[in-house]
């Protein structure tokens, strides 16, 4: 009686601590050649465990903040390992998922890394921004093991938070471009001119992704549809975290509903979980013409194909493979890779770090998205080019000025024309 | 409905609560059940209403054998019981309580229930508001509600256990009127009481019980003296206490008023001398305990003053904290030794340590062991220093309690000092106490054993439903007089100045 009481309380208290991933993409190593098809679905579990590497064998130990099969961020980062495995005989991996204080109280990221290394891992991957300190500590403790921190910036010499540590590597994908395409498809899909954006918590990464989506939407609204930019409404509602924590965050289901019921006929997701999609499906089932744009996961449009305008996603495999190869060649050192899409084919699983799959609901308007892709690819279109103002009206980019990577990575505010908070109070 | 109990037996462990008890209650009659506490009245009616099961005997309802094993069985058979503490649900409203326990569909029809409630309440002139919270009701009102509830469930035999304790005079009048009306409707009423005057006023017939047996059944009216002799039917024991009274005043009380949610007690002036023993007689729950707790400093009186002699002479103690009473040499021995007096899981030695006022950090085991061993020897406790008190017999627990009394001891308050003890222990305990008296300790004790009161008291105060008599010299007491007073008939023997408010 007492025990079960306490245990449920433990769960309750733990829930408020949940941690999750944040979005980011790996640089596709433009090198790797052979054409394999899309990464297979989640590997069967036990197979991954014991096989010790012999000879040229190589083993990655991965630490995931959430469930490996969440159809979102964690699954995308996890499936990158399957990709490497399909390309490299003798490659194996161990992983521990749900490394967060709610699911595994009293488990530190560094501790998991220690255990994975003790089990023979040659390289460690941390998949969440929240592991930044664990990644650094692990790198210091095991100077011979490359430690990859997905989405962090400690290894960015030109960044604000550089820490000198030769075996620490950051990788991320240039999701900003895909968010532009996503925003464009949202603009093409809306009838009311009102686009809702369900944002997670407010930080540099989420600001730049929301802003990129807005830039893409604004571009297609004014340049493709030739409509008055003032008639486009783009509203961001931050729920407070990467997914719903009852009582702590806003309920994303309710946020999405409020959007749809408030005349926003397109809702873009910026969070880990698919509430925007499920609510759009409900609306469609009720006969309403409402749509969603997914995030993180390649097959996001499968949730509700008729309501899906598209899904920008990460493709981590090539970046992992590149890192492994460099490590084996002894050339992997501290580096920060913010990997671009393969502009020749943004959906090439071997070369593109990020991609965008148009949804069924976009119909033949996908041609106009392709046009934007082409413009971005050849540089004829650059949406981070002045004149651009911050949300408060101050100047971000002067006329003709092009944003530096740092300006984009560390974007301090949302942009003029967007509704919603730029920073937490 | 006629209710008939034939040759009922019931025992709890070694205690025989009912021995061959037979009782018949006629339809349309109000039948009194009279007796001291522990006479077996409550046990008997609880078997009739299904709250406990009998060991042997039969119950006939309207001449048909009835198996009443649970209260629900009782209600189905038409027997309902009103307990001394009405069994209700405090956080609920009057209406909720009224409908609780009713048979019926899943959903309550509140409007019908309100209607039914009002009709019933009007019939008996009970002024109850259906939406009132139970917590705001007086005991009398809760009782009225419970009666209405039982009637709505269709009971035709109504049992009331000590219903006049804790209710106001007007509520009592209303209750009696209602009961007479119910009897007039052909219902049978069992009225359990220890109050002679209530029984005499209300009942048609009375059955008197004593020590688990039926003494007899008589029709009312009947001379009070007859009832008293039936209740206490024996000669009182002769006093055995040697004189120990000294001239100095040990304690003085001026116009004390004490009360809890059941009862109010008023004690006018009282002076206790050093070495004196005062016995508090009366049925349990008549206010003796409140009085003892107040003298011990555990309860604070509502009004009045209390003086106790310590080394510095007579000091006013009114409103002082309990521990100051202890340092002034006041000791209190509760009746429920394991609930209030001792700590089950701790040893005799540990109790000794708890009692030492040593301000040191560490326990001096050697010293406390010696003290404990001495106490064990002196108080003849059958146990070792490290025996947990919960494992001691009742008599040895009482010896341990006595051993733990503070020293010097100016005043000691005892509740049922020899309850549950064998004769040897009883005599021994009183030897110890009288020895204390010789050294100047005053004793006030409550007991339900009249013999004990008469044997050991210098003076006796009788409590009855909050009413308190003047102290009476034990030598001036007769069994009849004592019994009448315990039954609430103070007559001219009680002083009107001592009449309790109720």
């Amino acid at each position, binding site marked *: 009686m007492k025990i079960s009481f306490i245990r449920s309380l433990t769960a309750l208290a733990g829930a408020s601590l949940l941690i999750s991933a944040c979005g980011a993409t790996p640089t596709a190593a433009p090198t790797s050649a052979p054409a394999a098809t899309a990464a297979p679905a989640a590997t069967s579990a036990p197979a991954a465990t014991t096989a010790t590497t012999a000879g040229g064998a190589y083993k990655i130990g991965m630490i995931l903040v959430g469930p490996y099969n969440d159809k979102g961020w964690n699954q995308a980062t996890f499936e990158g390992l399957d990709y490497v495995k399909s390309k490299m005989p003798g490659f194996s991996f161990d992983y521990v998922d749900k490394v967060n204080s709610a699911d595994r109280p009293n488990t530190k990221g560094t*501790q998991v890394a220690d255990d994975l290394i003790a089990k023979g891992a040659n390289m460690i991957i941390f998949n969440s921004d*929240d592991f930044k300190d664990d990644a650094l500590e692990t790198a210091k403790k095991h100077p011979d093991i490359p430690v990859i921190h997905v989405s962090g910036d400690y290894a960015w010499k030109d960044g604000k938070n550089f820490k000198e540590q030769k075996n620490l590597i950051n990788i991320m994908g240039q999701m900003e471009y895909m968010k532009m395409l996503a925003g464009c498809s949202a603009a093409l899909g809306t009838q009311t001119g009102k686009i809702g954006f369900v944002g997670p918590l407010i930080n540099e990464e989420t600001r730049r992704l929301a802003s990129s989506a807005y830039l893409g939407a604004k571009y297609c609204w004014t340049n493709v549809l030739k409509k008055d930019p003032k008639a486009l409404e783009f509203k961001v509602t931050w729920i407070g975290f990467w997914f719903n924590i009852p009582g702590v965050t806003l309920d994303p289901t309710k946020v999405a509903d409020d959007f749809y019921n408030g005349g926003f006929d397109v809702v873009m997701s910026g969070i880990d979980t698919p509430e925007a999609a499920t609510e759009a499906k409900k609306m469609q089932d009720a006969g309403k013409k409402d749509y969603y744009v997914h995030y993180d996961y390649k097959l996001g449009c499968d949730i509700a194909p008729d309501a899906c305008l598209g899904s920008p996603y990460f493709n981590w495999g090539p970046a992992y493979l590149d890192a492994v190869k460099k490590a084996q060649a002894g050339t992997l050192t501290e580096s920060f890779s913010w990997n671009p899409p393969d502009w020749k084919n943004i959906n090439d699983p071997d070369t593109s770090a990020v991609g965008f799959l148009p949804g069924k609901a976009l119909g033949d308007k996908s041609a106009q998205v392709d046009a934007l892709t082409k413009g971005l690819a050849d540089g004829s279109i650059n949406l981070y080019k002045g004149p651009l103002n911050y949300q408060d009206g101050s100047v971000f980019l002067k006329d003709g000025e092009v944003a530096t990577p740092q300006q984009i990575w560390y974007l301090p505010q949302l942009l003029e024309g967007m509704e919603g908070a730029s920073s937490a109070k | 409905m006629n209710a008939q109990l034939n040759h009922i037996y019931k025992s709890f462990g070694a205690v025989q609560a009912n021995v061959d008890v037979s009782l018949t209650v006629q339809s349309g009659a109000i039948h009194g059940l009279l007796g001291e506490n522990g006479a077996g009245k409550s046990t008997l009616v609880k078997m009739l209403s299904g709250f406990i099961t009998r060991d042997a005997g039969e119950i006939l309802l309207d001449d048909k054998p009835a198996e009443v094993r649970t209260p629900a069985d009782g209600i189905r058979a038409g027997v309902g019981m009103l307990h001394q503490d009405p069994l209700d649900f405090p956080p609920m409203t009057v209406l909720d309580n009224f409908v609780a326990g009713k048979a019926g569909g899943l959903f309550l029809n509140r409007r019908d229930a309100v209607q039914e409630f009002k009709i019933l309440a009007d019939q008996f002139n009970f002024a109850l508001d259906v939406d009132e919270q139970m917590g705001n009701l007086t005991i009398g009102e809760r009782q009225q509600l419970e009666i209405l509830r039982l009637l709505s469930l269709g009971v035709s035999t109504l049992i009331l256990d000590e219903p006049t304790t804790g209710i106001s005079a007007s509520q009592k009048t209303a209750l009696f009127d209602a009961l007479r009306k119910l009897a007039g409707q052909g219902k049978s009423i069992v009225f359990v009481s220890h109050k002679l005057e209530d029984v005499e006023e209300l009942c048609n017939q009375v059955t008197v019980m004593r020590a688990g047996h039926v003494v007899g059944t008589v029709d009312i009216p009947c001379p009070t003296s007859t009832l008293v002799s039936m209740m206490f039917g024996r000669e009182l024991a002769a006093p055995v206490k040697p004189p120990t009274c000294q001239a100095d005043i040990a304690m003085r009380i001026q116009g004390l008023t004490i009360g809890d949610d059941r009862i109010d007690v008023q004690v006018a002036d009282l002076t206790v001398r050093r070495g004196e023993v005062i016995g508090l007689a009366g049925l349990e729950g008549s206010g003796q305990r409140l009085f003892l707790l107040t003298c011990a400093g555990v309860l604070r009186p509502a009004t009045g003053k209390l003086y106790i002699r310590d080394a510095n002479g007579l000091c006013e103690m009114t409103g002082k904290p309990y521990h100051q009473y202890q340092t002034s040499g006041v000791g209190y021995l509760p009746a429920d030794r394991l609930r209030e007096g001792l700590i089950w899981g701790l040893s005799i030695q540990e109790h000794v340590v708890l009692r030492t006022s040593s301000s040191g950090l560490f326990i001096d085991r050697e010293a406390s062991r010696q003290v404990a061993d001495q106490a064990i020897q002196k108080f003849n406790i059958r146990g070792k220093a490290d025996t947990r008190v919960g494992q001691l017999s009742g008599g040895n627990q009482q010896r341990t309690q006595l051993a733990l009394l503070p020293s010097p001891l100016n005043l000691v308050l005892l509740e049922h000092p020899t309850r549950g003890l064998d004769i040897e222990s009883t005599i021994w305990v009183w030897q110890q106490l009288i020895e204390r008296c010789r050294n100047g300790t005053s004793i006030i004790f409550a007991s339900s054993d009249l013999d004990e009161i008469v044997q050991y008291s210098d003076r006796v105060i009788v409590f009855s439903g909050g009413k308190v008599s003047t102290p009476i010299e034990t030598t001036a007491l007769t069994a009849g007089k004592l019994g009448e007073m315990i039954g609430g008939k103070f007559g001219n023997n009680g002083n009107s100045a001592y009449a309790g408010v109720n």
Partner: protein
Amino acid sequence: MKEKSQSTSRALVFRPARGLTYQAGALLLSFLFITIIILLTGESPFRVVASLWDGAFGTTDQFARVFSTLTPLVLCSSGLIFTFTAGLYNLGVEGQIVAGAIAATFILREFQAVLPAPLVVAAGVIAGMLGGILWGLLAGVLKVFGKINEIFAGLGMNFVAQGLAIYLIFGPWKRPGIASMSGTEPFGESLWLGRFGQTDAAPVALIIAIVALALTIIIMRNTHFGLRLKAVGQNPRASFILGMPATRLLLSSFIICGAFAGLAGGLQVVGLFHRLVPSISSNLGYLALLVVMLISFNALWIAPVAFFFSALNVGSLQLPMVLRMESSLSGVIQGTLVLLALLARGFSERARKAAGGQ
């Protein structure tokens, strides 16, 4: 005489052997139950045990991790001995850890640039103790003067402490750049409590925990305070009648438990996480509740049981890694043990009553 007094002192501490058969039965039953659970998941119990063992003692890091878990667990269990002995279910221990961690972080943040590092660390640990005391005392005041059941008061205070920690991490104490669940900015290594090599075990923290445990044992068996606490816990009414200052005793037990838990929280900051993280308590307060319930409030057993639970807790990480099993199995094991132990105690109590012990 010497002999006698020794047997007495033992009687003051050890529970009677009567319950021993029941306890052994409970242990056996737990193992049986857990084995069945494992078999139901299709695993071999031997592989599970081997993995757990390997995960707790396989490497120096893991062994060190067991000790770094043991430290707060021993501190909190020791603290809980006081409140449980006083008859209080101090569920607020979790919040008291957090409050201690917050207080320690505050001192470190404020004084790291001003005072010499060892002084700052010492001040931080002491502040942690004070923070825990404050939190414990608040629950105590709510209990004693507000008449709020300590279970609910403690739980409420847990949520407040947790909320405060998250507010600070995401608000006033957020790290430069962006706030994150990863906690506040890590403190410089000069402010880290010394560790065994590069492991997670901080010897000083462990020593503090051992001292706290020793104090607890001594206070409980040899002092007037300990005995009075026991009396109040077993029978508040009789204790009052016997003249114990009940209110003062109850508040003292809250203060001591708060102090130990706060100490644990402070040590989590300077010894393990080196910053304030949202999950600073790591639920070890709740785990300590289990420890204390399992050992029937007898402080002598804290060390072995806490060590066992720590090893289980740390070793359980191998379950998902090696066997792809849920590591929450360790929670099931702990919960089963405690439940059945409590059940056994209930039965032996009943048997004793039936045997006429009363």
